[in-house]
């Protein structure tokens, strides 16, 4: 990066980064879910690429793309584990914020204001694509997932999480998270855009990838923690798929 950036701008972005990374701030629900998401992502990547998470920088040499990177909540852990990371976000304002925080963390991450489709058009390809809580917000999931597949090297790993569509997910994700708990701004989610696990598997296959795993993110209201569940995919869930041809 060149150093022509206005220092007052940097201070502003650092303040916004602090907001993104405040565990009790605006993004509290994301911070609560994050350890669980990271457990899934790191385990899947370690398994697929035969890495030992007990070692220093186990993801060294892996190229990872995070779509919808926001403040860098997934990019930074991946970079800390040694991966070469690109984070993209369609919201331009998130880019300098994520950059400011990565600088403070002493991490090198390539953040770009672009979309999956535009990045795919450049011919970029990655070992793993993280596609977390994005697919329920896009206009054309099939075209979007095709772009995700194009962004993978042959044998690459696609991890995608989203929200199921059923009465319980309506109660939890919309009534609960947006209206009762006020975790998310009203209108964050449109229930009709939610996707069932079977629909998502069909979409992933249609985009040219082979689904290999799915798990639920289950919220425990007593311990106030999320955990991975093999059976309960009724609200938030995550999937892993491979691009054939390694």
């Amino acid at each position: 990066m060149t150093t022509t950036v206005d220092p007052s701008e940097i201070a502003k972005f650092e303040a916004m980064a602090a907001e993104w990374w405040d565990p009790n701030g605006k993004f509290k629900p994301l911070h609560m879910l994050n350890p669980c998401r990271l457990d899934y992502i790191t385990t899947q990547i370690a398994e697929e690429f035969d890495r030992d998470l007990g070692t220093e920088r186990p993801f060294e040499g892996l190229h990872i793309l995070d779509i919808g990177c926001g403040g860098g909540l997934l990019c930074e852990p991946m970079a800390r584990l040694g991966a070469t990371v690109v984070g993209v976000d369609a919201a331009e304002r998130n880019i300098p914020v994520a950059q400011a925080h990565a600088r403070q963390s002493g991490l090198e991450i390539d953040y770009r204001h672009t979309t999956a489709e535009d990045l795919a058009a450049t011919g970029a390809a990655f070992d793993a694509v993280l596609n977390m809580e994005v697919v329920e917000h896009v206009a054309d999931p099939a075209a979007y997932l095709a772009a995700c597949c194009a962004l993978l090297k042959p044998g690459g790993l696609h991890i995608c999480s989203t929200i199921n569509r059923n009465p319980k997910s309506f109660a939890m994700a919309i009534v609960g998270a947006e209206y009762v708990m006020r975790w998310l701004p009203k209108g964050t989610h449109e229930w009709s855009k939610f996707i069932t696990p079977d629909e998502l598997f069909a979409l992933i296959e249609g985009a040219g990838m082979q689904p290999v795993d799915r798990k639920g993110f289950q919220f425990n209201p007593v311990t106030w923690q999320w955990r991975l569940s093999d059976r309960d995919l009724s609200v938030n869930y995550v999937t892993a798929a491979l691009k054939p041809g390694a």
Partner: protein
Amino acid sequence: MDNPAPRAIVRGMEHDSDILIAGGGLNGLTLALAAAQAGLSSTVVDALPEAAARATNFDGRAYALALASQRMLARLGLWEALRADAQPMLDIKVTDGRVGDSAVFLGLHFDHAEIEEGPMGFMVEDRYLRRALLSAVEAEARVTLLSGTRIAGQEVLPQGATVTLEDGRGLSARVLIGADGRSSGTAQRAGITRTGWGYGQTALVCAIAHELPHNGVAHQFFMPPGPLAILPLTGNRSSIVWSEREGFAQEINALSDEKYLQVLRPRFGDFLGEISLAGERFTYPLGLTLANSWTADRLALVGDAAHGMHPIAGQGLNAGLRDIAALAHVWHHAARRGEDIASPQVLGRYAEWRRFDTATLAAGTDLFNRLYSNDNPLLRMGRDLGMAAVNRLPGLRRAFIREAAGLNGDLPDLMRA
């Protein structure tokens, strides 16, 4: 663990180690070893010169390590060096007594045979524990110990924490840990306030040699001025922890050894035969002091720095070890996920885990002490009935034994069998 040496050098910010630990007492050194096992490097700063820390004469101090704490020391590779000098506690007998009464009225009896895990704990002398820790730290490449120096100042930046030593040297790390005791300078410098109160009581601590064997039995007598514990050491020796009203305790402590023993003898009768002093005598004012926050930016407190407790149940060191096991557990999992070990998310997980446990324990020992340090006949009758009730209910008794062994609650990895 045979990981390659950790690289604390993160691009952009070079640290001396991952963790800076203020205080090289039992908690500080144990934390450094537990962190090393999780692949993290630490620098420990301790005010005591190393020669003093290595002194091997018996000064009379000893700890009642709960079974969970013993497991943790074993996991950290310390137990082999301690085993020969550790005395298993096979039984705990709780008695409600009065000075001069022959204290043989056994109100409560906890026998380790009632739980399958083994003895409830072990008595380990301070000198052996320190020696084992210092040797392990010396052999551990991930730990640097700076003895005989103090921290003069500390600063927390978004990139890390730095401290300035009194000789002007500067050190930096990702996170700063206060393991510097109940008047923690680390906590004070971070602006963390404390809540607490004194009990107007002082603990008198000494070791005795006695004529008859103790058979591995620990005794707790509840006397009106305060509790008295007889904890078995190896051979025909025991550690005595005995509470008296502040002024009276000072008077007792000023007495000659022989007169001191004359005051002590009638407090627990003659079931151990003739007794004599087997080490130095210590006094500790009793009080509860809890840090109002367990963490600050890039900073966390462990042990007495977070919670100085009434030592009524010998829970001070055990609670500190549980803090360390929980912090190491949280760090181990955070590091595998690629999380920043100093982030408020990660440190918050540790604080949440331990804060509730400790507040409950502190309130429990406080209440226990208030209830038992009392000669009110109604309270005496009430607690005697309570003891008898606990004694007749095996389920409840087992729950107490498991609690004494430190096996209740959500156990960190290091304390699991």
